[in-house]
């Protein structure tokens, strides 16, 4: 077990390191540099040279990388060249926002997908199944930038149940915070519902065909008990795995929703930083996001090992 842990931690370190290098290279090789945006109308050759020198951007790339890495090990992720906010602060304020978005949206997704799948998998291809399948495909076909304005038009401007934009920190007012996050969360949920539903349905149908189910039934177990204990448990593995990939994609993938709902998350900060060549911010966020992703995968894998000790292989 500890060997397993060591391996995963090692994996975490390697992946994080490689990603930090990639992010660094990618953003530094983009044409232009922060001086254009910072200097604005004061952009002269002399000013630019001075500014780049001040920011340490004249050093060779490998040196800049090592300087940054060194700072990271001291817990210093640097600051934005533009508004001088510390990257740590950007992450500290933005991460909870995205975390909440992900939690709420995945909760909604699971709450809808799981019962629905359980419901329809017993009678595949019947009307209920067809309706459910059709609607989930409908959701898949509508990306967040379409769903968001529709939701706002109906529920915010139309009915007035929710605000159109804005974010209230949880610590300030938990109820308002969650209430205001509902529309943004629903906007990113659609795809997840479809995937989870399809996955689980598929797995359940196949599991239910198997003989041990017939066996259980012949033993007199009730339908619900069968569904839950014997069918759902094994089918949930792939669901969990998909959730892992999905959540990973959502981290820093919430940019569109953050933009439209004016929510200060790290997705928005990340894209802003790339476009403004705010190198340290990009590198810092990319690193932390990668670590978060690997950690989540790790947790999910861990759940797998708890459920089935044989999974711990490698």
């Amino acid at each position, binding site marked *: 077990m500890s060997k397993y842990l060591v391996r995963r931690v090692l*994996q975490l370190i390697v992946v994080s390191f490689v990603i930090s290098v990639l992010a660094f290279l990618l953003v530094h090789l983009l044409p232009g540099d922060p001086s254009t945006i910072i200097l604005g109308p004061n952009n002269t050759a002399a000013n630019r040279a001075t500014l780049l020198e001040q920011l340490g951007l004249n050093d060779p790339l490998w040196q800049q990388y090592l300087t940054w890495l060194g700072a990271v090990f001291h817990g210093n992720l640097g600051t934005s060249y533009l508004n001088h906010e510390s990257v740590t602060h950007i992450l500290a304020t933005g991460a909870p926002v995205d975390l909440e978005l992900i939690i709420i949206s995945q909760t909604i997704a699971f709450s809808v997908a799981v019962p629905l799948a359980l419901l329809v998998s017993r009678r595949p291809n019947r009307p209920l199944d067809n309706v459910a399948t059709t609607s989930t*495909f409908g959701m898949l*076909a509508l990306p967040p930038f379409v769903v968001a304005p529709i939701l706002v038009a109906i529920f915010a401007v139309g009915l007035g149940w929710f605000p159109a934009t804005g974010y209230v920190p949880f610590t300030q007012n938990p109820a308002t915070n969650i209430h205001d996050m509902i529309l943004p969360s629903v906007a990113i949920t659609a795809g997840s519902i479809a995937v989870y539903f399809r996955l689980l349905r598929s*797995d359940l149908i196949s599991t239910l065909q198997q003989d*041990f189910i017939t066996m259980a039934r012949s033993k007199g177990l009730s339908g619900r008990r069968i569904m839950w204990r014997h069918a759902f448990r*094994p089918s949930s593995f792939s669901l969990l795995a998909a959730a892992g990939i999905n959540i990973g994609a959502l981290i820093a993938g919430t940019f569109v929703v953050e933009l439209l709902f004016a929510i200060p998350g790290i997705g928005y900060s990340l894209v802003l930083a*790339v476009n403004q060549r705010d190198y340290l911010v990009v590198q810092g*966020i990319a690193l932390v996001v990668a670590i978060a992703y690997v950690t989540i995968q790790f947790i999910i894998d861990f759940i797998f090992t708890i459920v*089935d000790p044989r999974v711990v292989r490698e």
Partner: protein
Amino acid sequence: MPDDRELLDTGASAQLLGDRFPGMAAMDEHVVAMQSEKLDSDDVLLKRPFGFLFWFALVWIAIVFLAAIFANLLPLQNPNFQNYSALSQGPSSAHLLGTDDLGRDLLARLIFGARVSLIVGFFGVGIGLIVGGTAGLISGYKGGRLDVALNAGSFIILAFPAIVAVIAIVTFWGQSLVHITIILGVATIPLMFRVIRASSLSFAQRDFVVAAKTMGATDTRIVLREIFPNVIPVTVTFSLITVAGIIVIEGTLAFLGLSVNLPTPSWGNLINEGTANNALSTDPYIMLWPAMSMFLLLWSINLIGDRLRQRFDIREGLL
């Protein structure tokens, strides 16, 4: 990622349960063995004629593909021609689906847009399959160092914030259909890799493979003749859903200005144009046609996939 058999092979779930219900182990083995073979006779539950929906879906897919391929030959208006005296008009005899905010015929844009979306979707997934799928197939079977390395590699690609990569690549490389297809294709490589690898891995440990090995079959032969055919169902299903995903993601790229050059239509940027500038409230039909077409296509593809799988293979596989 749980890399082992349990990820995608639901036959394994039966095995797992076997451990929890002593006495069922023997039953288990039988079940698993059965599942390795194709047993049409057991598929009593699901063996039925294809049904109306199936044919409807097939026809729709055919229409979309044919229209996209032969768009130039169809009596369509120029999809890019802006008619400033016919802005944002609803469906009429002159424009069957209406016009958009720049006075362009929506029917023409829809059909030409299908081209872009289909190319991006299918070729993109094609790239993922060829590169990621092959790698996964081999890697799942062979294991060892190659497997560990490729696995870590796929992990790295998945953990990197995609949006940064796309912005960077499009900035370097410019917008174009080819570029977008390649970028999205490359993005699917790790997904294909993981899915097919897991499936390949699960089959690699099956008795029939072990048997083939002991009989002296080469690795190539085993991969091609034993594993590959069994991996196909899962691959097909997952690929189809990925096609859906890519076509939709292209829309988000259009929203961010990272997709094909204006004024080229694609379903993704048609939807984007139909949502922008409050068009959703004033002229909702602009967004409606591409969204419905996309929805019908996704639904059709997956329905066909479903039915084919049910018909020809007991195991539903993952999706």
